[in-house]
Every structure is written in structure tokens, then in C-alpha cells.
């Protein structure tokens, strides 16, 4: 029942064998070795697996790899260019928006998506946007600060 799927991941065309039931997150982690995208739950709630598909943040644990045939996927590994942190990544570092780092890739990918259509989010808007991203370390205080700062920095 295996087939192959081709998609663009972080700007490069990739092809791999998948089963129909293979989730995008497993294709990324196991077939492509992109282990920055994490799995923290099995009910599509924690958001550790958030990536961008065709420019929008989605939970890669709740989309099949085959559904992404031809899609443009960006993971946390594709965000920093040439070793320079993306402004949102930089903001998380500057504001101590991460501790254990496990939720961080999903958190950053979600935050980048927010900032793309809301360049100056309020604290409340950030907190509401992050409904689908759980963090157990930070109490969210510094994540919220990071997202606000990162969104601002993204405007250049």
C-alpha cells in the first residue's frame, strides 16, 4: 500500500515512500530526518508539530503526508537562513521564551504565522492565538513577550 509522495520542503523538492496512513510529521521526522518538528500529544492539541503548509500554520500530526503532495512545506529547520536566526527565533532567544525547547519549534512556527497577518499583536491576541500550542516550562510569560517582540522585529 506504499506509494511515493513529492513535495517541497524548506525550498527543496523531496520525494519519499509513504503509506496512506503516514502523517506529515512522521514523513518529516523519519523519512527526511527533520527532527525539529516534534510530537507531544496524540489528540492534535499540543502544537509541538506545527509547520507551515502553503504558507499557513498547520499541525503536521493531523495531516497525511499524501495530502501534501505538491505542497510547499516549511519546518523550523527552514526558518533560519545561512545560520542567521529569523527575527522570531531571535526574539525567543532575547526574551528567554524557551526552556526545555521541546514545544519551541511549534511555538515559533505558530508565532511567525500570527505575525504575518497581525504585525502588532496585543498581549491578549498573542495569548489567544497560542491556544493550540502548549508549553509546560515557561508559564507563557516570556513566550508572549517573545512573540510581541518577534512580530515587531519581523516588520524590519
Amino acid at each position, binding site marked *: 500500500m506504499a506509494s511515493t509522495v513529492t513535495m517541497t520542503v524548506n525550498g527543496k523538492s523531496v520525494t519519499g515512500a509513504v503509506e496512506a496512513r503516514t502523517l506529515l510529521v512522521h514523513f518529516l521526522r523519519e523519512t527526511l530526518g527533520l527532527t525539529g518538528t516534534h510530537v*507531544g500529544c496524540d489528540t492534535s492539541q499540543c502544537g509541538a508539530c506545527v509547520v507551515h503548509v502553503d504558507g499557513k500554520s498547520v499541525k503536521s500530526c493531523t495531516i497525511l503526508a499524501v495530502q501534501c503532495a505538491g505542497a510547499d512545506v516549511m519546518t523550523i529547520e527552514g526558518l533560519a537562513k545561512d545560520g542567521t536566526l529569523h527575527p522570531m527565533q531571535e526574539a525567543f532567544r532575547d526574551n528567554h521564551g524557551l526552556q*526545555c525547547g521541546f514545544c519551541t519549534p511549534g511555538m515559533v512556527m505558530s508565532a511567525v504565522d500570527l505575525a504575518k497577518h497581525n504585525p502588532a499583536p496585543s498581549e491578549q491576541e498573542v495569548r489567544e492565538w497560542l491556544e493550540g500550542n502548549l508549553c509546560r*516550562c515557561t508559564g507563557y510569560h516570556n513566550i508572549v513577550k517573545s512573540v510581541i517582540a518577534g512580530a515587531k522585529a519581523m516588520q524590519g
Partner: protein
Amino acid sequence: MTDTGIGASVKRREDFRFLTGRGTYTDDINRPGQLHAWIVRSPHAHAKIVKLDTAAAKSAPGVVAVFVGADMAADQVGGLPCGWLIHSRDGTPMVEPPHPPLVTDRVRHVGDQVALIVAETRQQARDAAELLDIVYEELPAVVSMTDAIAPGATQIWEQAARNTCYDWEFGDRAGVEKAFREAHHIAKLDLVNNRLVPNAMEPRAAIGDFDRATGEYTLYTTSQNPHVIRLLMGAFVLHIPESRLRVVAPDVGGGFGSKIYHYAEEAIVTWAAGKLAKPIKWTAERSESFMSDAHGRDHVTTVELALDKDGKFLALREHTLANMGAYLSTFSTCIPTILHATLLAGVYTTPVIYAEVRAVFTNTVPVDAYRGAGRPEATYLLERIVDVAADETGIDPAEIRRRNFIPTNAFPYQTPVALKYDSGDYFTTLDMSLKAADYAGFEKRRAEAARRGKYRGIGIATYIEACGIAPSQVVGALGGRAGLYESAEVRVHPTGSVTVFTGAHSHGQGHETTFAQLVSEMLQIPMDSIEIVHGDTNKVAFGMGTYGSRSLAVGGMAIMKAVEKVVNKGKKIAAHLLEASEADIEYKDGKFQVAGTDKSKAFGEIALTAYVPHNYPMETLEPGLDETAFYDPKNFTFPSGAHICEVEIDPDTGVTRIVNFVASDDFGRIINPMIVEGQVHGGLGQGIGQALLEGCVYDPKSGQILTGSYMDYCMPRADDLPSFNVATHNVPSTDNALGVKGCGEAGAIGAPAAVMNAVVDALSALGVKHVEMPATPQRVWQIIHDKRTAKAA
């Protein structure tokens, strides 16, 4: 202070890899030829296994092996050990039932490990699990502790009458009884400390590996203390000598206590890797985490406080039932006893204290330390009963606390419950919080909220905790089966760069930064030339790991000792090179200098000399510059603080909103304020979660977990929590040379009582005296509804 030294908010060095997706968590590791494991778990809380046929599963596609408990038993695999022996009041040792990694004949909680399927892919292993032919004969499940200790209750363990593990007492019973007889007022409260599921965001995972050529086993695991796992698994379970067992705990995605313990899955994959001579990976699904990670808290308590006419505390008495779950997890037995009852003095001068703690087996997941471990439970009961006493005596909650604080000039202070506090200033932290929270202006805000139809309340919690766990001899005298020192090795390389090997483990705490700051400050060399290594038993000589806010107070002190040894040896080398007396050499600004002269040798020159010892005092000194130190603390450390929470309750829905949260803490000396604040925030998030959102609920009859996923277990989200107002007033510890105390658990210890005192205060106009945690909308609405209905009737 330099810009990277002690006291500087240096940005974390570990962040780059985490932010770019280049961390290496256990599940990110794949070994060549790796197979995948699925653990078949009990669907029942209590049952006999009457049939277990593996034939169909073994022949499923991709399946390499199926193992059951009998296979492990045939290999003489031992049980998971418990690390702390508690004796009952009658002198008998606790009941310590067997804890095999895979059960053989009976399951005792939903999620108990029944079989292991090993297959080429994870999906194949899981597919095959459904072909396992298991027949269970269900037994009555014992779920609540009060049911468990009732006469005639089903016994989970034959050897544990009335399902009791131990019946422990502590303190001065006669003295307390006398004080209660003579008291002006007695406050009494029954309360529950709700069961929590730790929920580190990274689910547990383990990869067992075996090299047939060398006979060496390797376990990659999500652990807070790889050496402890090596010791427990090697010595007690699999009988593998340390020399042939390597345990690696790479990047670990949060622990909060839940990754301290030696878990069955670690032993299962390591043993099976040996049987098959193949690497085997197991990664928990979140739903498995809910039924296999050790849970936290779960106490049912009665507490009483005796007061004199001026509101001075005369005596405290506690009776607690503490849930152990179905088996004893590694440190389960010391949490409600040694780490709990010894904290009952809190920040107060209460002269006599008595505690009775009965540990109870139930058909639930084992319970062990979770952020704070025994101390949040102590703080919660103490700070709730103090508020009840304040309410009943009409003394303001801030004032009654002040009247009973240990005076600032009374340190070191010997409490009646064994501990000797190092230092503190409870008045100042309380004053800071009162001011930051505008306590004086609260009644105006309450009135304004009332005009909008809302109940507003304010709550104080002043807490103490014992960190820097722990002096080994004290631990040993109290039944601990381990030493709780820490080790460090400071290896200076020939060019003057430094690698520090620490037995502490970082799973979010930022040790790679903080420890490098410490060494940079001591050696006055750039942070960039210092690397911190942890988490691998093949690299780090030994270690006891990270829990109980011990990393800096114990692990940091070991590093300091090792650095001192390096400096002392460097002085000898410098004395030789500079033709001076060793006593005249001082180490300053990165240079070994003859005091009072301009003659000096830089740190790097001394390092090079140690490794290229052409001009060297060879007869009295070995070449090389690599020092190891073990540090055993002489005492615990005692961080303290005052937390104030202000809430507003919507009576229409029962929703409690936190409108302000202030924390003023004393953590002793601080290395990196940014990281410390982050630790406080995280602890507060978990403490508020316990108070308002989280609670593990079992079906009282079937023993099924009703909150077995994020659909039903309420994890704090960003919009559930406020921004926090945190500050510190640091009184250095007098019991370690760094003056540090520890900050990891403070938030989780102080917050629950502060929040619940605020909730009760908000509802006090309705005559509410207590609200159980979590104060969910439903619970709060029901209380308001019942009170209003009763009033109307």
C-alpha cells in the same frame, strides 16, 4: 560583575540548537538497524491474566519478537527498586511489593505493562499488539484511598493489610496534644491535594542498544539523572555492571520530577536489545504517558492549628492519606513523609508539630515527586489553615503571618521538625508583595467588582521550601538508600579551554549557560572557552542528577570545588615558574600573580605548562590540569517567599480569572536573573494549573482514567494565565560558599495556596470557608449556586 559573570542575564547558549530544530531528544535518535517497540498495557485497573497467547502476534508482518513477563522472569530480571525505606510508627518497615517491568499474572492499574512487541516499524508493532490473545479475569478495583483502607477492602497486595504501605508518624504528639488542650482557638480544615499528571511536553522515550562485540549495553532515555538509572537498572533489575552499561540522557524536554524515576520501559528495551542484539526504540504516545508516567500529589488531609489569644501559633497537627498508586515508584515513599512533614513549620515559629501520614496502595498509576514534591502539599495545608485561622480570629491574613514569622535575626533557626533554616527575611518579601499587589487598596477593587456583579478576592501564601537536596548522612539516617552529593570534573585543556563535566542534568534549566557563567567568573576566562557536558555516563564520571532544586546548590558547588582544585594546582605550577613561594601566588583577572609584584602567568600559560611540563616541579606535582570534586551539602537550603494572587469570579459561569499575581522570593545568590525569573514563571504556571485547571480523575468504580488526554486533562494554556509580577530579595545561604538556595520549585509551591486563598476570599461573603482544587468553573458555580439557594430558602 562582568557581562557574563555571576549576576548577569546572559542569553542562553543552548537556545540556538533548540530554536533551529537541531536539539537532540531521545526520539530524534535513530540507531542503525533499529527496531520499534510497542508496549501492550492493561485495559483494566485490577485483573488476573488467565490467558496470554502470543502466537498470532509473533507471526504478524514485520514482527521480530514478542516478550511477556515470564520471559523476563526466566532471565532473573529483577523488579524496579524503591529508593527510600520508611518505617511505620510501630517500627515495622514499609510494605515493598515486587515491581516487575512486565507483569506475570496480575495487572494492578490501567496501563500496567503486559507485553512487548518488537517489529520493524512502530505501526507494525502496534498492529500486531491487537493480535495478542489475552484473557483477563477482572477483580474489584480499589480507587479511592478511603475505600482502600476500609476493613474488607479488596487487597491489591497480599502483604499489605488494609492496602497500607506504611503508617508513619513524626513530631511531638504529646506536646501537640497539650498545646491543643490549652489553646485559645483551634482552626481545623479537611482538604484534598489534587492528583496531577506532570505532562512534560516531551513524552518519555527509550532506546536500548547492545553491542555483541563488546558486550556493552547503551540506553538512551528521557531522564533527569542518567547515572541513577544506570545504578538502579544495572544493579537491581538487569544485573549489568556499570562498566558495561552506558546511559545517555540527551536533550530532555522537561521533567518536573516525572523523569527522575527508573521506569519499566527503560529496562524492557535494554533487556530486549540484549536478547535480539538490535537497537529497540520505544516512544510513549501521550495517552500512554497519562497511564504510565508517575503522577504527583494526591493527599487527603485533616489539618488543625492551635492559637493563643494573640493569634500566635501554638501547635500544628496533620493527618494525611497519601496515595502510592499500585506500586512504589523510585522516590514515592519519601515524598509525603521526609520531604513533607519536615516543612510543616513553614516560615513560622510554631513550637510543636505532629504529623501522621498513612501511605496507601490503590489501583492507580504510581505517584511520586512532581515539581515541589511534598513541599507544595505542606505549604498548601499550612497556608490554607493560616487563612482559616485568620478568618476565624478576625486578624488580617498578612498580619497573622507577620505575628508568627521567624524573626530575621533568629537564623540559623532550628524548627521543631528537624530542619535548621539557613537564612531568610520573610518580612521583607511579604512587604514587597503587599506593596506590589496594592494590598492596602484591595477593598476598593472588591467593591468596584461587586458593582459589576463579580466576586473579587485576594490571597497570600508565604512559603518555605527545602532545596539543595541533600546531605547524604541525613538522608541515610532517614531511610534514603542513596547519597545525594554531586560530582564535577573541570578539565583544563592544554590551550586553556575548559570542559566541565557535571552530574547535574539540564532539561530546560539552562545549565550550559549558568554553569559556564560560574566557571567564567571564577577563572576570569571568557564563557566561550568553557563547555558544559552532562547527560552521558560515558563522559561524566558520576552524578545524582537534577531534582529538588539541587543543580546549583549541590552541582554548582561541586563545580566550584573542582575549579578551586584547578586554581590550587595552577598556583603550584605558577610558583615554580615564577620562582616564588606558593603562598605568595594569587589568582586574579585570569592570571596567577606573585602578590605585590607585576610578575604573573596567564591561565593559558599555566595550562600549557601542565601538559608540556618541560619546566615543571615533576617530583612534587603530576602533569595535567584536570580535577574532580564531589560535594556533599552540609544542609538543605531554604528559599522562601511571599506570593499574592488576586482573582475575580464571574458568578454566572463560575469562571475564576487571575487579575494579578505577584511573587517576591528569596533564592539566595543568583547567577542568571533571566533564567531564575523563567523558572519562577514556569512554576507559577504549574501551581496555578493545580489550583484552577488540573486534576487527574479516575472513575471511582472501574479505575479508568477519565482525564486520559488533553481533551479532558486541562493543561494551562497561554490565555489561562496572566503575566506575572516577580521580584527577588535575596539573602545568601550561609550553608554553602556560593550562597545559593535554588528556585526551580518555588512557583509551584507558593501559587496553589495563594490562588485558593484568593478564591475563598472572593466567595467569603457567601460564607464559603474552603474550596477544593482545582477550582474549575463547574465547582465554583456549584458552590455559589448552592450557597445562594440555601440563603434564599
